[in-house]
């Protein structure tokens, strides 16, 4: 009796374990070849029509008086649906977050000039000056700038027609800039979820307010793979220089009331016409149906 019960329990546990393995197996994508890039695309969701894997390899972000070159790869991945939202004369599609939750990779970029570049010793109050001295003495002067999504990925919008036609906004993204250094603390941001920086990136020519001048992006060199199921745009250039940014906030921990104004004074005016985003890289787009098919064909 005891033996039968034990066997039944063991069998049940084994079944549960196998089921769990099975589920884990089905969740694990089995993409091969040119489709492997799209492993984090939420393609099982039938609302997702296209998968995207965009690698920004270079470029720069100019925020007021500060220029941060993009030296480390930034990856934007996920999917987008059918173009259903009409805005600014174009149809935009809703974005779907990457399945691993990393829609926009966090790649800390070096801020030229480091800590003294954004919190100059000379113009700082005594307390700030003393703290900076400590950080300088301990070689903690490097400052990183990390681009982060300010809102859920579902707030990103994509216009394929504008991307293809090199006109208007191809991708609208709510972002914030995270300034990182032990002195600045963990909550030093330009932009927030409630007051994000809204990039309207395009591949055409911008029409920014002065003093910025028009700059031109590019769809890049396009090639179709897998008989038109995948599009690869090398040397693409997404640009926007008409965006505004809020003031930096939360910098310096409890001293933010002292540090924020110093940083903002160093950044200078960050209203529209003073900022620029130039993202150069490779854009990979695939039909989600083709990715799904590749997944089922390669168990």
């Amino acid at each position, binding site marked *: 009796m005891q033996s039968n019960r034990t066997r039944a329990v063991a069998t049940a546990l084994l079944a549960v374990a196998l089921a769990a393995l099975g589920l884990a197996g089905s969740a694990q994508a089995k993409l091969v070849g040119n489709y492997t890039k799209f492993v984090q695309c939420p393609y099982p969701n039938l609302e997702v029509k296209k998968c995207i894997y965009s690698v920004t390899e270079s470029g720069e972000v100019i925020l007021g008086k500060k220029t941060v070159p993009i030296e480390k790869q930034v990856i934007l991945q996920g999917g987008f649906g059918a173009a259903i939202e009409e805005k600014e004369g174009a149809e935009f599609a809703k974005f779907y977050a990457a399945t691993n939750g990393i829609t926009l990779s966090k790649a800390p970029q070096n801020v030229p000039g480091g800590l003294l570049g954004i919190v100059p010793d000379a113009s700082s109050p005594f307390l700030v000056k003393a703290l900076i001295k400590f950080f300088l003495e301990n070689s903690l002067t490097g400052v990183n700038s990390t681009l982060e999504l300010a809102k859920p990925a579902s707030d990103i919008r994509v216009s*394929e027609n504008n991307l293809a*036609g090199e006109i208007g906004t191809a991708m609208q993204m709510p972002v914030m800039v995270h300034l990182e250094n032990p002195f600045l603390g963990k909550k030093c941001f330009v932009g927030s979820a409630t007051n994000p920086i809204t990039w309207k990136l395009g*591949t055409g020519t911008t029409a920014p307010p002065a003093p910025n001048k028009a700059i031109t992006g590019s769809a890049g060199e*396009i090639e*179709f793979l897998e*008989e*038109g199921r995948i599009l690869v745009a090398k040397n693409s250039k997404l640009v926007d220089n008409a965006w505004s940014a809020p003031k930096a906030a939360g910098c310096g921990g409890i001293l933010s009331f002292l540090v924020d104004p110093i940083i903002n004074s160093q950044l200078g005016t960050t209203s529209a016409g003073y900022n620029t985003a130039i993202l150069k890289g490779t854009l990979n787009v695939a*039909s989600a149906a083709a990715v799904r098919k590749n997944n089922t064909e390669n168990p």
Partner: protein
Amino acid sequence: MRTKQTAIGAALAALAVLCAMFATTASAAPAWKFEGKALEGTEVILGGALDSALTVPGLTTKCENFLYKLTIKNEAGTGKGEVTEVPLYNCTTNSSACTVKSIKSEALPWASKLTTVSTTNYIVIEGVKVPILYDGEECVLGGVLVTVTGSAGGAIDNTAETATFNASTLTATGTSLKALGQKIEWNGLFPTEAFQWHREQALSVS
């Protein structure tokens, strides 16, 4: 006094040379001719491409019926014209994933002119605009409107009475067609046959 006369003579000679040069340039501009005689008034060329394909690397779009209507005339000795109609039907791609949902010619008429580059006569068509809407669930361009724009120059073959458009003829004429933000290839062979007043007459450009 003699020096003055010489100077005037030289100036007149230079002027004469300049005039002759301009006259030569004007007469060298190619014109539409029927049976070797310059076209007077207008004529209509109507036909269908014998072969035509638009290619972005990895994706070629072809139309079974690529018809066109071209009105031609000579203006000050130079062949000109207007492409007034370009109905496109039964268009397909070389991809098993992509179909052509719609394709049409826009911004008509497209101006055209004849030009000579290194002894070869070309017809240059300007203001081309062809939006193509692709479809197909597995097609990455599904639902995307791709618009072909620009100008294209095609080499005229008086013997075969055709105009050939390809990468070489576009380069030779300094023209280009763009789609998806880049130059695309257009290969096409078009017969040049009069349809109105000069039917069955040999059409040439010189």
